[in-house]
């Protein structure tokens, strides 16, 4: 990456850091998500490792200036391998009083605080509930404060361009971004390129944003506000080509990959819901991949249309969040009974009920594993990080087809909207997914097709799709006779079928890789995690091990059934710690399965664990 010529090297003291955590915070209308993404993009291009954590209110634009309307974006970028968006920010950019109020508590002592004094008028202070301005007095003594009137500077940068005051002020986030680029020795050109393509249809906006961005950079360069400029050298990452990716994006691409690997087209039946909607949006754009996206009238139609599509020979899938899964429960039971492939993605958010729609949580595990009427076993897998969503999606499709079963894939708001650099795979290296439609492999047409005759190894039944002559058959949600699939109310048959369906799912436990394990085999403490706690646990365990503690970690991609290797790991440990963003759901499942007196570390705050929270607990147990 060559430095753009607008970015002349400053002559200040240069300090090299191995990592920085920065948080941009402002009003929902201030464009903080955009600022954060652009800064992230630039960090990625500079070869840093990184992780992000966007955080915004459920309302589209909560009233300007209120606490409820504050939107934030946290980014951690580094010159070494990291796993979380960081605990306490080193740098906080606060665009108004409310943003300061909401975020100040998180800033680490001695951290850098950049405030836009233009957002601290009487009205803003009132709305934030500040009786007097925190910028006066010593309320901020613990921090290095840089107070600038970004409103004013932005307006001035745009003078003569003929923008209204309102339009002009909307650019101020680029001023802040320019300042930060200067401060952390970032080039402007990735953002400039982005501005040019984003506003391609509006030359005035291109001009305005570019001006403000550069003005911010130059302002920082010129003024004496900053004594130091920082550098965060690239991280030593494995060789290969990278892109920055968010979880929902990676998940969507994973489905496209599964489609290519299986040779089947995708049918996505979905109903919009935060934080899952972006998967629908993303896939809707890839019609040339043969994707059908169907925005259904509700969640029930979404999943049942997907079941219909699977019946007809596509990969039926449905994406939603907790309340949507609740509505899909009955249809999931049907899918279990039909034994058709189906993938349900739950991008979990804070519950119960509507809960915290834009916040993250892992409290839908019970629902995924056990939340149905009757004996209705469904395998559950979980994605560990934004880029891991790609592989998790492929695995979900593989299991669904191989075992002729619905599969639940759990993601959550944190990894869905969070991002990280992704070492891109070669498509040719990804393993194919085998599909065998009955009657389409040149076999002789049976006199009497048996739709519930099972594969010996997987116990999967055949997939015979409408259109195949000689394979006409009837299926349904009433109990079926073994093999023939006819309606049966027979007592022994019912028990046999219940057990067969259970056994089929159980077999996945030995048809998946052993759980990820890191650390000494004989460590005293094993920290067990699933889903998006992966990064925080990894960070904490590495730090603990660096401190010499006897601790290892184990991570579940296949959450249910538990992979065969898990039992020995847990039984051999003296203590097992399970951090989860819920009140102890995996914890209860582990106890029931292995009778292991595991220790729960619950967190239900709508936000991810920090590594230090976990490290602290590890230390207290060592």
């Amino acid at each position, binding site marked *: 990456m060559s430095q753009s010529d607008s970015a002349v090297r400053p002559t200040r003291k240069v300090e090299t850091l191995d990592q920085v955590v920065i948080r941009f915070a402002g009003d929902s209308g201030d464009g903080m998500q955009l600022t954060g993404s652009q800064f992230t993009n630039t960090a990625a291009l500079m070869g840093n490792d990184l992780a992000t954590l966007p955080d915004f209110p459920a309302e589209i634009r909560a009233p300007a200036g209120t606490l409820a309307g504050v939107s934030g974006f946290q980014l951690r970028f580094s010159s070494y391998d990291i796993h979380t968006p960081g605990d306490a920010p080193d740098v906080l950019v606060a665009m108004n009083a409310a943003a300061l109020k909401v975020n100040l508590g998180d800033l680490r002592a001695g951290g850098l605080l950049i405030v836009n004094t233009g957002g601290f008028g009487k009205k803003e202070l009132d709305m934030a509930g500040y009786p007097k301005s925190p910028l006066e007095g010593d309320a901020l003594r613990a921090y290095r404060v840089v107070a600038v009137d970004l409103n004013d500077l932005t307006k001035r940068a745009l003078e003569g361009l003929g923008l209204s005051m309102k339009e002009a002020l909307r650019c101020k986030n680029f001023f802040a971004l320019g300042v930060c680029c200067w401060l952390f020795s970032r080039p402007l050109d990735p953002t400039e390129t982005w501005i040019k393509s984003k506003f391609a249809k509006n030359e005035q906006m291109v001009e305005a944003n570019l001006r403000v961005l550069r003005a911010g950079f130059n302002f920082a360069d010129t003024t004496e506000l900053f004594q130091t400029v920082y550098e965060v050298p690239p991280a030593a990452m494995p060789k290969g080509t*990278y892109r920055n990716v968010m979880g929902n994006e990676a998940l969507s691409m994973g489905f*496209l990959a599964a489609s*290519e690997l299986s040779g089947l087209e995708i049918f996505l039946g979905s109903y919009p819901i935060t934080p899952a909607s972006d998967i629908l949006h993303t896939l809707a754009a890839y019609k040339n991949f043969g994707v059908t996206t169907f925005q259904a009238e509700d969640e029930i139609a979404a999943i049942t249309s997907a079941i219909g599509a699977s*019946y007809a020979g596509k990969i039926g899938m449905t994406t939603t969040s907790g309340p949507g899964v609740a509505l899909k429960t009955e249809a999931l039971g049907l899918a279990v009974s039909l034994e058709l492939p189906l993938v349900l993605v739950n991008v979990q958010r804070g519950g119960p009920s509507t809960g915290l729609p834009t916040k993250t949580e892992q409290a839908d595990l019970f629902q995924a594993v056990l939340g149905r009427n009757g004996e209705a076993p469904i395998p559950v897998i979980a994605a560990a990080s934004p880029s891991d969503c790609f592989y998790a999606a492929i695995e979900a499709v593989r299991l669904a087809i191989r075992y002729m079963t619905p599969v639940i894939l759990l993601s959550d708001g944190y990894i869905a909207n969070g991002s990280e650099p992704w070492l891109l795979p070669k498509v040719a290296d990804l393993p194919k997914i085998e599909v065998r439609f009955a009657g389409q492999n040149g076999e002789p047409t049976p006199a009497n097709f048996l739709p519930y005759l099972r594969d010996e190894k997987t116990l999967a039944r055949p997939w015979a799709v409408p259109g195949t*002559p000689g394979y006409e058959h009837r299926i349904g949600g009433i109990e079926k006779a073994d093999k023939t699939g006819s309606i049966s109310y027979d007592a022994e048959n019912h028990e046999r079928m219940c057990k067969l369906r259970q056994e089929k799912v159980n077999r996945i436990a030995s048809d998946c890789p052993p759980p990820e394990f890191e650390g000494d085999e004989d460590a005293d403490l094993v920290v067990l995690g699933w889903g998006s706690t992966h990064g925080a646990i990894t960070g904490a365990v590495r730090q603990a091990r660096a401190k010499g503690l006897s601790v290892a970690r184990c991570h579940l991609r296949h959450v249910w059934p538990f992979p065969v290797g898990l039992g020995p790991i847990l039984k051999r440990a003296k203590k097992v710690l399970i951090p989860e963003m819920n009140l102890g759901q995996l914890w209860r499942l582990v106890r029931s399965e292995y009778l292991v007196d595991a220790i729960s570390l619950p967190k239900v705050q709508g936000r991810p664990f920090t590594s230090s929270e976990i490290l602290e607990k590890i230390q207290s147990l060592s």
Partner: protein
Amino acid sequence: MTPTTEATAPTYTKKDFESDQTIRWCPGCGDYAILATVQSVLAGLGIPREEFAVVSGIGCSSRFPYYLSTYGFHSIHGRAPAIATGVKLANPKLSVWVVTGDGDGLSIGGNHLLHVLRRNVDLKILMFNNRIYGLTKGQYSPTSEQGKVTKSTPYGSVDNPVDPVNFALAAGATFVARSVDVFRQHLSDTVAAAAMHRGAAFVEIYQNCNIFNDGAFESLTAKATREEKALYLEHGQPLRYGPEKSMGFALKGASLEKIDLKQHPEREKDLLIWDQEEPSGTLGMLANHLPKDPANPVPLGIFRRLEKPTFDAGMRAQIDAARAKRGPGNLEKLLYSGTTWTV
């Protein structure tokens, strides 16, 4: 799959559409007659048997797919239209049918029905309306008449019934019709017309449940009164009915006036000429408002038939257009698109 009349079309008899399953309806149930008729109609469409997919919900009526030798899917209560949408979108070549009941289709499943109709998904939807919940042993349904005494309404039901034909017209269905279980020829013609229609075809079929709502349509079906009670809507023909077709209807303002042609033969010219292609549904609703007055005949036949692009074709066209424009998806290219960097 659209019906074909090509020389290569398979020739079937009704028997070819009978499955090997024992039929589990009550003796005397109106469903038997419908089954026999539908089996005959399917046999005559010239569509290969394996290209039929018949989807149902739950209810006595929804057992239907078991008794056809086609691909069949007995699903869960009320969701057949949504499932069928998935089937049709996944494989537009199939002839996809939905069989539902008044409870299945208009109580729990009313919303899905609304949406497939407005979308104009190319499905053939047969709703068996017996004005009762049969399978759960006789509770009132959304089409039961007000005051209906049933197991769940020992004091009589309070709600106004919903009229399936009005509902379908307002939803914008492109084919809306009504027939009767025991009017075999009429039913056969109506179902065949639905089968030939490209788009969402909705057929309400009055069906007698002789166990829990026996005789619900008797005033219409009784041999003695049939002629007086059935008003057949025929495209391009005046609205006439009764013995010797001596009664009819004319427009009067925005409502219908009944005319006794024996007394007023001069008014024959005023009779409303039935136009099934009237797009707004107004005419359909006008004709269908009649049954509310017990003195009036019951309109049967096709209330609306319009050609409109179907949802499934539209969805497919988008995929085709995207492919034509951008080429088939290239996964490798997609993954490596956007801002990437190489270490």
